[in-house]
């Protein structure tokens, strides 16, 4: 049996009401006990196999993270034949992530893809027929090319990949023919023609990746951080947007010392709103930590809402925050418009596109709908997209498609530089193989077969 204990989210993160975190291994029960208190005060160790218990998950500070139901399956009566704990969480994605984090901090290791199945197999729990459907393994070649991927992708995405591969193969055939059949009376593909076709393929892949990004959003949510100097009204805005008094609001600058998170759903897309500590040079240690955290929050977020105070002059700090935000999608929110304006709008427009500016008053609750509209625009785009199965694919598939696109773009460069055909050919073949891995297709004889059926070659 394996020595270490592994854990992973067993359900799809997202809108499902219950998320299950699975822990398997010798220490799984002990690990779960470290972060869990049952309502009945019973310890997990006392439970029989196949029992369930209700209670709370606590973090390091003793704060309740979520209400959960835990089920226990003891060795050998579990899927992996090891001790297995399942934590059924009710909270949103943020809570689930936090719990997973706690489980890992308590001594479990994040499972490799397919590792539960692998353990089940290794411990004689399931036969290979079952493995086949779930096999996700360690080695590069197989890693991205599993049947599960093909099954998951039975929809439009796999068709799309097939169609891109077809275009790619046609191109490779033309390029390879010009290498291996150099003396034949065949039409040699020109660099212009190659470039045209390869660019088309590149744009197709780009579209695909964009779709996947949307898929990722559907799955994991989108992170929005509210940032700005102290006391500009960040926490007030958060409370308005999430329609709850979650963050503490006071007239004292530097109130929020730690990021406060809340999920809301926009057209079914989970949006994780984060309030942050106001950013300024501070001598106060705790506030300083908070400020550092805010900078980290900027890094981690997909979208930034920069808040400035209408009633105060723009300072270098505001400008600095604006500049720091350039790398991400962002909105500038001018708050407290109920008060007399002291800001120079012309100056602001030097730093940010007018379209990205909204004026609101958190106090009077004006302009909030406009702010929400803007957030929606940035998260899900003007045209609302449907949450379709086809675009929900896993990270590795996305990475593979990205790699394929990189290869294609390398080919574009090679062609632009008029490198000899075998160089772009290598990039094209690499992309072709990568895409093949996603849909689980071997490439074997495709190329030569294509050449022979397309061209009249041979002596």
């Amino acid at each position: 049996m394996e020595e270490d204990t592994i854990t992973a989210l067993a359900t799809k993160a997202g809108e499902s009401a219950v998320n299950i975190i699975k822990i398997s291994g010798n220490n799984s029960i002990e690990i779960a006990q470290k972060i869990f208190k049952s309502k009945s005060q019973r310890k997990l160790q006392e439970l029989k196999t196949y029992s369930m218990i209700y209670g709370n998950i606590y973090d390091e500070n003793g704060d309740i993270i979520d209400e959960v139901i835990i089920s226990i399956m003891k060795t050998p009566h579990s899927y992996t034949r090891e001790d297995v704990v399942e934590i059924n969480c009710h909270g949103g994605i943020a809570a689930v992530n936090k719990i997973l984090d706690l489980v890992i901090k308590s001594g479990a290791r994040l499972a490799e893809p397919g590792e539960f199945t692998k353990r089940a197999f290794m411990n004689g729990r399931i036969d290979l027929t079952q493995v086949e459907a779930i096999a996700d393994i360690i080695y590069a070649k197989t890693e991205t090319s599993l049947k599960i991927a093909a099954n998951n992708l039975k929809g439009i995405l796999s068709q799309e990949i097939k169609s891109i591969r077809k275009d790619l193969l046609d191109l490779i055939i033309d390029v390879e023919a010009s290498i291996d059949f150099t003396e034949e009376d065949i039409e040699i593909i020109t660099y212009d023609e190659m470039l045209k076709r390869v660019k088309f393929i590149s744009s197709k892949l780009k579209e695909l990746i964009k779709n996947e990004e949307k898929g990722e959003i559907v799955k994991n949510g989108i992170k929005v951080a509210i940032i700005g100097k102290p006391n500009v009204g960040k926490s007030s805005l958060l409370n308005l947007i999430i329609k709850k008094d979650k963050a503490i609001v006071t007239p004292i600058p530097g109130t929020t010392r730690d990021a406060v998170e809340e999920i809301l759903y926009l057209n079914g897309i989970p949006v994780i709103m984060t309030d942050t500590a106001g950013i300024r040079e501070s001598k106060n240690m705790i506030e300083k930590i908070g400020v550092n955290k805010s900078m980290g929050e900027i890094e981690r977020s997909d979208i930034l809402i920069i808040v400035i105070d209408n009633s105060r002059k723009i300072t270098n700090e505001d400008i600095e925050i604006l500049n720091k935000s350039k790398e991400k999608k962002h909105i500038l929110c001018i708050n407290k418009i109920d008060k007399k304006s002291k800001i120079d709008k012309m100056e602001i427009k030097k730093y940010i596109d007018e379209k990205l500016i909204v004026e609101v008053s958190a106090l009077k609750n004006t302009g909030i709908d406009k702010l929400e509209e803007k957030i929606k625009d940035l998260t899900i785009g003007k045209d609302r997209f449907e949450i379709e199965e086809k675009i929900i694919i896993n990270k590795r598939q996305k990475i593979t498609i990205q790699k394929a696109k990189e290869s294609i773009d390398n080919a574009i460069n090679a062609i632009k530089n008029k490198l000899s055909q075998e160089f772009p050919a290598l990039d094209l073949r690499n992309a072709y193989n990568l895409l093949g891995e996603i849909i689980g297709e071997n490439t074997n004889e495709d190329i030569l077969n294509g050449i022979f059926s397309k061209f009249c070659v041979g002596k």
Partner: protein
Amino acid sequence: MNNSKNVFDVIVVGAGHAGCEAALVCSRLNLKTLLLTINIDKIALMPCNPSIGGVGKSQLVAELDALGGQMAKTAEKTLIQLKILNKSKGPAVQSLRAQIDKKAYEIEMKYVLENTPNLILRQGNVCNILVENQIVKGVEIEGGIYFYSNAVIVTTGTFLRGRIIIGDKEYKAGRMGEYLSLNLTKSLNNLGIKTDRYQTATPPRIDKRTIDFSKTIEQPGEFEPLNFSFWNEKTIHKNISSYLTYTNKKTHEIIAKNIDKSPIRSGIISTHGPRHCPSIDRKVINFPEKTRHPVFIEPEGEYTNEMYLQGLTTSMPIEFQQLIVNSVEGLENARIIRPGYAVEYDYIFPSQLNLTLESKIIENLFFAGQINGTSGYEEAAVQGFIAGVNASLKLLKKPELILTREESYTGVLIDDLITKELYEPYRMYTSRAEYRLLLRSDNADLRLSKYGYEIGLINKKQYDKVLNKEKEIQILNEFLKQKVIFPASKNNEILKNMNSAVIEVPTNLYQILKRPEIRILDLLNNFGFDFTIKDNDVYNQVEINTKYEGYILKQLEEIKKYSNLEKITIPQTFDYFKINGLTFEAKEKLNSIKPNTLGQASRIAGVSPADISILLIYLKSKSGR
């Protein structure tokens, strides 16, 4: 009966390109070797095109040469033209092709064989392989004479139950006008070796004096000094031209009108022929939209008027062959000297062999060349060499020589043969080699001569030359990285004169050499660096490695990625049917091919990545983690 005169270490059956290499290897490794051939006048014959090399094939020849094979040397002695193919492309796909004087090649090769110690040449038609307890013991030739040996290498080409077809006429023959082997197939089948039939064909030859060359385009060879074998100095070779002409509407009409007379249509030939060598009949059927096909007119030798018609392969009845030939521009009055024909023959499924080319079921019985379902002199020769090496190493109780796909075309060839499902005679192409950019003709010596030396087929002097080259490459590399050019106006003037952009920061020679327009010798000369090296090819190697470094690294990266799978071995006794998770197709394929490694398994058509995953877990769990 067990006459000691009839006892050998190795017997090679057949003296074609595979057989010659195999016999030479064994005898050069001091094994007493008998080379049997049906007709002692037909050694190392080139029954089809009069050339050696070509795209993908010259890489094979270079590898064979680097390993200590014979083909390149004999070709260099007897060639009458040398041409660089893909000249405008990169070094990896540039290929040499030598036009050969066929008769000279035969005589030269026979001379080499006759003068190699330990090699006994003898005429004889092998009809039976002698086997005891699944171990080969020798052969029997027609007439009831027995020869005994510890290993047998079968290289019988197209001779097993050969059938020649011209129009509606059929002859039993190994090649036109030659004896065939009627009984050996049965002997092999009795041993459990499965065979099937392939077919191939050759064009008519015409009389040079009847060609109107003014209507053709002359195709001369290169005028620069070149070498076909690494071990020879570069020299300017004979340069006898070939000529190019084209078929036309009239040709195609003749064929279309008489297509029912073509054996491929009439049903006389139903076996698979190679797609890379289609008959003109086939081309007209399959590509009716094409208005012309090229025809290369190539000399069969220096002292003959016979000209080979590359591109006009046909086995139509002779009178139609004449019509077809005469319809082509420049050949209006051409006279056929010998007609084209098709030949059908037995080959063995190569998946019955190990990567050493030894039979999986009969120990010490090896197969090489066209009998393994390949086509081409070069493909045959490298197999003959590998079979000869491995037969010898086995008898000498030394570790086998298996070249991998990552290091050689030879590895690609043999791995493909054994792993892939093939439906036609196999020809090498550069596109078959996934690591094409690394497997160049120009570095075959650097890649492979270490093996030749270890085995004893490359001598110390030759190997020292390679080691010296390696060392000088390193020195020159370091030199280029160390020498820095400063952005002084004098230096930038030099760069401008080389049509290259000026530099703004100190830059080493290595970085400058990466620029496509910069050639290494110009660079060194123009900046006044005096760098003397013994081996001029060093410049070439360094230039290639520098200019294409990015791509070369990518390929090395790829190799690393897949090397794990190549390292995991699968026992030959592995029972695939026991494993539930595999698809039925995968089970069947894996069971019939019995791959040696997981890497090989992953290349079998019909075996999906999921199947490989299952095998991987299974093998890992078996090996007790």
